């Protein structure tokens, strides 16, 4: 039997939870139900929608000209950004974990890109990628290499966007750094006592101890980068030849530019399920390579 005090506590808890629940309901759950409903129609936003059942989904998997291109572009970008991002961030974190002069300053320097608004950094990077006057081609010219059309070339456009994205992964560095500082010194000293060198420490202590942090960064980064939008919107508009036609940009273009809201909603649902499934797979396989202290 609940006491008056317990009941009062419960009411207070619900009152505090109410704003969050309202937000969750109106900003997340309600729109999701709306997207499911719209995906079953031919709604253009201009005329009354007609119920079309699963027609949008069928069309996406059979005749949609852009879907396969977009999936390929998105996976290429996401895998490229995540893998290079983890290597970059982990390497920088390892360096920043050493006793280097001005360590606090360097930690700030590598974190700053993360807090720069993405549109702003896109514009600055587009100037650096500029073919005639950009800084990258200037250096290439100095060593006698012909200029490269970084953002206009089918070969270089997406890698250029990946480099730009990786540069902005300051938060990943901070998380890796926090993880590195939690690697127990006793284990590292044990390697010293056993006659091991720096590589042995890294390979057999640091990496295994860091696997939960690597897993977290990999998962979050994969989800974030699969949903890439800003570079395609601000710099390449899906070009050249669909190489940067990332899924979220395609959904935006179909819905808000070309009035195919039904089709766009179906695309976003498929994309949602794909990300959820991928997350589940990453979780399932992580048990095989992730090490938790105490397990």
């Amino acid at each position, binding site marked *: 039997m609940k006491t008056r005090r317990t009941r009062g506590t419960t009411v207070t808890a619900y009152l505090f939870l109410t704003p969050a629940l309202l937000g969750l309901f109106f900003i997340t759950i309600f729109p999701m139900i709306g997207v499911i409903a719209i995906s079953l129609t031919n709604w*253009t*936003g*201009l*005329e009354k929608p007609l119920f079309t059942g699963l027609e949008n989904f069928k069309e996406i998997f059979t*005749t949609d*000209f*852009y879907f396969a291109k977009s999936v390929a572009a998105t996976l290429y970008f996401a895998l490229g950004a995540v893998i290079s991002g983890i290597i970059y961030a982990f390497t920088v974190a390892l360096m920043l974990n050493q006793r280097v002069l001005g360590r606090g300053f360097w930690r700030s320097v590598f974190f700053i890109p993360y807090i720069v608004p993405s549109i702003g950094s896109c514009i600055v990077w587009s100037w650096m990628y*500029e*073919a*005639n*006057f950009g800084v990258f081609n200037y250096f290439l010219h100095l060593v006698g290499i*012909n200029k490269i*059309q970084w953002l*206009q*070339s*089918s070969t270089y456009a997406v890698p250029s966007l990946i480099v730009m994205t990786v540069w902005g992964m300051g938060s990943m560095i901070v998380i890796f750094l926090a993880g590195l500082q939690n690697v127990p010194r006793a284990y590292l000293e044990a390697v010293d006592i056993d006659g091991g060198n720096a590589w042995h420490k890294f390979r057999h202590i640091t990496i295994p101890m860091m696997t939960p942090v690597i897993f977290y960064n990999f998962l979050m980064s994969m989800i974030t980068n699969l949903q890439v939008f800003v570079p395609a919107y601000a710099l390449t508009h899906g*070009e*050249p*030849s*669909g190489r940067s036609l990332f899924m979220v940009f395609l959904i935006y*273009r179909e819905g*808000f*530019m*070309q*009035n195919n*809201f039904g089709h766009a909603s179906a695309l976003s649902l498929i994309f949602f399920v794909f990300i959820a499934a991928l997350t589940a797979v990453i979780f399932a396989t992580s048990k095989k390579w992730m090490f938790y202290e105490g397990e």
Partner: protein
Amino acid sequence: MKKMKYVLALAFVLIAASAFAAKIEITYMAWYNTTESEAADIQKTLDKFNASQDNIHVTMIAVSRADYETKLNTMAAAKQLPDTCIMAEPMTIRYAAAGLLADMSGVYKPDEAPLKSLAFTYKGKVVGYSCADEVLLVYYNKKIFDDAKVAYPPASADKAWTWKEFVAAAKKLTKDQNGKTPNDAGFDANNIVSYGVDFNRLSWMWPVLAVSNGGGVMSPDGQKLLIGTPESIEALQAIADLYTKDHVAPSVGDKSNMPSLDVSLLTGKVAMATSGQWEIGVSLKNSLKDGLVYGVGVLPKMKKAVTYNTGGPFVAFGSSKNLAAAKQFVKWMSDESNGWDLITGGIWMPVSAKYYANEKIMRTWADNDVHPPFAQYKTAVIDYAMHNAVQVPWYYFPSYDKLDTLINSGINDVWNGNVTAKDYISGILPQVQKLFDENRPK
């Protein structure tokens, strides 16, 4: 007597009330390109309208050009459309097909009607007229032509260069870093410092050459797809060859890094370039003070001399609660006197037939310091627009933007020489045909 007083008092109240009666409120949505000062300029025009009206007051909704379609589509979905707006050309007929645009057929008297070539029409109903008449032309730097001893591009349609003559001229005008042309042995195509031509490869612009060759994107009635015809493919390949084979044009990448047209011509980066009439006021006039001496000519032809005409339309939405006032405002906006600075400034050409009636009237807007010499402008631009212009298909085809996006979805591979025009068009043709059939006015 007392009764009389009441009647007089009532009459006074009624007169006073009518004098202070609320005006009919309408909204007008317009875009600004780069700075919000553009919106302030549009507001000045609206202020002029408001000052001239006793019963109507218009309020502007200014939207960044980059977000314009998104904003309008969102407003349409939320059933919150403005009363009037300037419309992006490719989406106009989609809105008309959805029944959202008001019929503008009866708004203009015969003597004040805009040119028929500027009418956006769906199933015989005019839903809007372009705010300006714009055509595609060739601009060139006279000094570069003089130095290379090459004749200027023809300034009248009957003398238009054939494609072969056009390419031959472009070859003489192209220079690598050693001063060699593509006709010389040892020409270095990787280090061109001055291109003979920049034939505009914008998605909606390049098909004008296909039209000239007897093809195009579709037939003028919007009923037959022509993009897959040998004529269209030949034209597409000819434009691609300018870079890949003839070495007279910049790559798509180089083009995207080029400065504005006036600076490209002034600095000799290109000797001639194709673009719209608006460049006279938007770009070319900016370099006159720096010594740019340019000329204007007609486009080269493959079979017939032809250019595209275009211009975003002013429209009124059928959902407007004050449709009559909205139409009145649209009509007022199309009146040349309200955009006179844009017209004499070389950005717009008039829309009403009366401004093309005789040379004296034409001189009132085209014979000034901003425009090229009138004799040249008249034949190369005005006569060309009157007799050789055909409409971009977005004047009559719903969802031309979707078709345009699909046709050009991988076209950079053609421009860069990775695939031939024939293979590229053959590859996308089934999809294009399907989309065309879905949207064709029936």
